[in-house]
C-alpha cells in the first residue's frame, strides 16, 4: 500500500512568530518544524502501511528555502521518501495554488491513499486537502478520526459535532485527518540516523509545469487586505468565596450549558 502524506513545515509555534509588514504573511525565513497537526497524518499512514504488511509512506511538502527540517522529523518517524516543492517564485502562493502544486507532485506517485491534516497550525485555511481532491478529481473525506482499508475501499469514521459518521469511500481518495486522533510516535535515534539517507526530491514550479505567472503573488487569487490582532482576552468573573461560592459557580456553569 502506498500512502502519500502532505505535510507542512511551519515556524516553531514555541517561538513568537512575526508578520511581514508588507505582505502581511507569516515570516518563514527561520528554521521550520513539522506542523504537529500533520504528525497525526504521518502516524496514521504509517499504521495503515504496517497493517497492510507492505508498502510505503511518501511525504509531499512545499516550503521556502529548501527547508527540510520538518521533513526530516517525518522521515525519522518512518516515512520512506519525500518530495519537496521549493522555489523562490512560490512566495505568496495562496491555498488553491498550493493545492495545485501539491496535487501535481502527488499525481505521479500512484498512491492508494492521500492523507493530509485537516488544517495547518499557522495558516488555518482548512481547504487544501479538499482542493487537492478537486484538482485530482478524487473523492474527499474530511475530519477522519480513523481509517480502515477494506480491499479497494476505505472505511472512515468522520468526526462530527455530535459524534462521528461511518463513511465508505473507494480508493484512491484524499482524506484529511483530525488532530489528536492517534498518538504520533517519537522519532527514534535510529530513525533520525536513517532519515539522513532517505531520498528527498526537490522540485521547482517549472519542474511541475507551472510558470511564474501561475504561482506566488502573481498567481494568487486571494489577497490579504488587513491583519488585526486577536482581541485581548477579557478578565473573567471573580467569585469571592463567602462559603456559598459553589452555588454561584454551579449557576454560572448551568447558564453556560456546561452542566
Amino acid at each position, binding site marked *: 500500500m502506498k500512502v502519500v502524506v502532505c505535510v507542512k513545515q511551519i515556524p516553531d509555534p514555541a517561538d513568537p512568530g512575526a508578520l511581514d509588514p508588507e505582505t502581511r504573511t507569516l515570516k518563514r525565513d527561520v528554521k521550520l518544524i513539522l506542523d504537529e497537526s500533520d504528525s497525526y497524518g504521518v502516524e496514521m499512514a504509517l499504521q495503515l502501511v504496517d497493517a497492510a504488511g507492505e508498502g510505503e509512506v511518501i511525504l509531499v511538502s512545499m516550503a521556502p528555502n529548501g527547508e527540510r527540517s520538518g521533513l526530516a522529523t517525518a522521515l525519522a518517524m518512518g516515512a520512506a521518501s519525500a518530495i519537496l516543492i521549493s522555489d523562490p517564485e512560490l512566495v505568496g502562493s495562496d491555498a488553491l495554488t498550493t493545492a495545485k502544486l501539491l496535487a501535481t507532485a502527488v499525481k505521479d506517485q500512484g498512491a492508494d491513499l492521500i492523507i493530509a491534516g485537516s488544517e495547518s497550525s499557522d495558516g488555518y485555511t482548512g481547504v487544501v486537502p479538499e482542493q487537492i481532491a478537486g484538482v485530482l478529481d478524487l473523492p474527499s473525506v474530511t475530519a477522519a478520526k480513523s481509517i480502515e482499508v477494506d480491499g479497494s475501499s476505505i472505511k472512515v469514521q468522520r468526526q462530527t459535532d455530535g459524534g462521528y459518521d461511518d463513511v465508505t469511500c473507494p480508493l484512491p481518495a484524499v482524506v484529511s485527518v483530525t488532530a489528536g486522533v492517534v498518538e504520533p510516535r517519537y522519532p527514534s*535515534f535510529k530513525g533520525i540516523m536513517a532519515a539522513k539517507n532517505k531520498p528527498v526530491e526537490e522540485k521547482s514550479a517549472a519542474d511541475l509545469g507551472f510558470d511564474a505567472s501561475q504561482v506566488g503573488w502573481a498567481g494568487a487569487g486571494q489577497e490579504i487586505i488587513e491583519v488585526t490582532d486577536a482581541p485581548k482576552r477579557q478578565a473573567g468573573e471573580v467569585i469571592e468565596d463567602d462559603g456559598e461560592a459553589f452555588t454561584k459557580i454551579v449557576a454560572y456553569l448551568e447558564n453556560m450549558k456546561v452542566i
Partner: protein
Amino acid sequence: MICVMTQPSSPFYNDDHESYRQVVRQFTAKEITPNVHEWDLAGEVPRDLYRKAGDIGLFGDGFEAEYGGHGQRDALMRLVLMEELCMSGSGGVVAALFSNYIGLPPIQKFGSSDIKAEVIAPCQTGEKIGALAITEPSGGSDVARIKTTARKDGGDYVINGSKTFITSGMRADYFTAAVRTGPDGPAGISMIVIPGDAPGVARTKLDKMGWLASDTATLYFDDVRVPERYLLGEENAGFSMIVNNFNAERMDLAVQSVAFSRVCYNEALAWARERETFGRRLADHQVIRHKLVEMDRAINAHQAWLELLSWRLNQGDDPVAEIAEAKVGATVTYELCAREAAQILGGASYLRGDTVERLYREVRVQAIGGGSEEIMRDLASRQLGI
C-alpha cells in the same frame, strides 16, 4: 513549569544532536515531567517507561547496533540526552533509567557475544534492566577491598557476599558485579554478570533522602551459582574495568548536576519574575538579581567545560583528572543553585512536590555517588602529579 536547557549556538553540536535533543525534550515533557511527583510517592518509575525509553533509543549510546544500541559512542549525544532527561527535575527518574549506562558498559566491552545478546539486547528495548553492583556494606570508595567472593566450582562460580546502595537494585534483571576471585587488593577482583533471578539472590529496599523514584537496594548473595560464561574478560582483571567504567559514570553525573542546576535556576527565575514583595517583583531586588547571576554564571562555565570534555572524549582523549575536577565543580554548582533557588522560592521550596525541594534533597547523592567530592579531588591530585 516546563524547563528547557538553554542552548546557545555551539560548535560542538551537529544536526543529529539537535534532532535527538528535540525528541528527548518532547519525550521528557510528555512522558516524564508531569509524573515525577507521583513516581516519587510510589518509590519507583513504571516498568513501561523503560520500554518507551527503549523505543526512542535512550539507552543506546556506546552500544553496538547488533544488540540494539546506537552503533556509536558519542559523548556529546550522551550529554544531550542526559541534559534533556534532567529537565524533568527528577534525579530519581534519571538514575532509574540510566542504571543501564553504568551496568552494561563492562558487558559491552568484555562480554562474549552470547552474553551481549542475552543481556544488552533486552535492556536496550527496555524489556530488562541492568545495574552495577560494586559498593559493599563494609566500604564504598575503596573498591580494591571488596569482600564478595566468587569461588570456582566445576563450570560455575559460587558467589557469596553483599552489595549496597545499588541503583535499580530492587528490579534489575542483571547485575554487573565486582567479586573477589583472587588475592587481597586490586589484583584479585573480577567482574561477573549475576542474573537477578538466580537462586540465592535476595534484596532489601533502602529508604533514601532523595532519588525517591529510583529503587535502591542492598543485595545479598548466598551461594549464588553463575555459569562461568558470565565472567567478563579475564579472571582477576576486574579492577581496571571498574576504574574505566567510573569515568563515564562521573561524566554523566557531572552533566546531570549542571542540568539540574539549570532547572533550579529556571524555577528561581520564573518565581523571581512573578512574585512581588514590598511592592516590587523579587527580581527587582538587587540581592535576588545577584543570586540569579551567580547561578547562571556558574552553570554556563560548567556547561561549557563539560561540552569541551565530551568533545575531547570523542577525539579519543582520556581526561581522567579533568573529569574528576568537573564532577566536583558540577556538584558544587548544583549545591549553590539548589540552595539559592530555595532561598528565592522561600516557603514554596519547602513543600513536598516542589521541584526545588526535590532537587535540594537530591544534591547530596550527586556529590557522593560515583566518587565523592573528596575522592574526586584526591584522584585529580594524583593524576596531576601534585
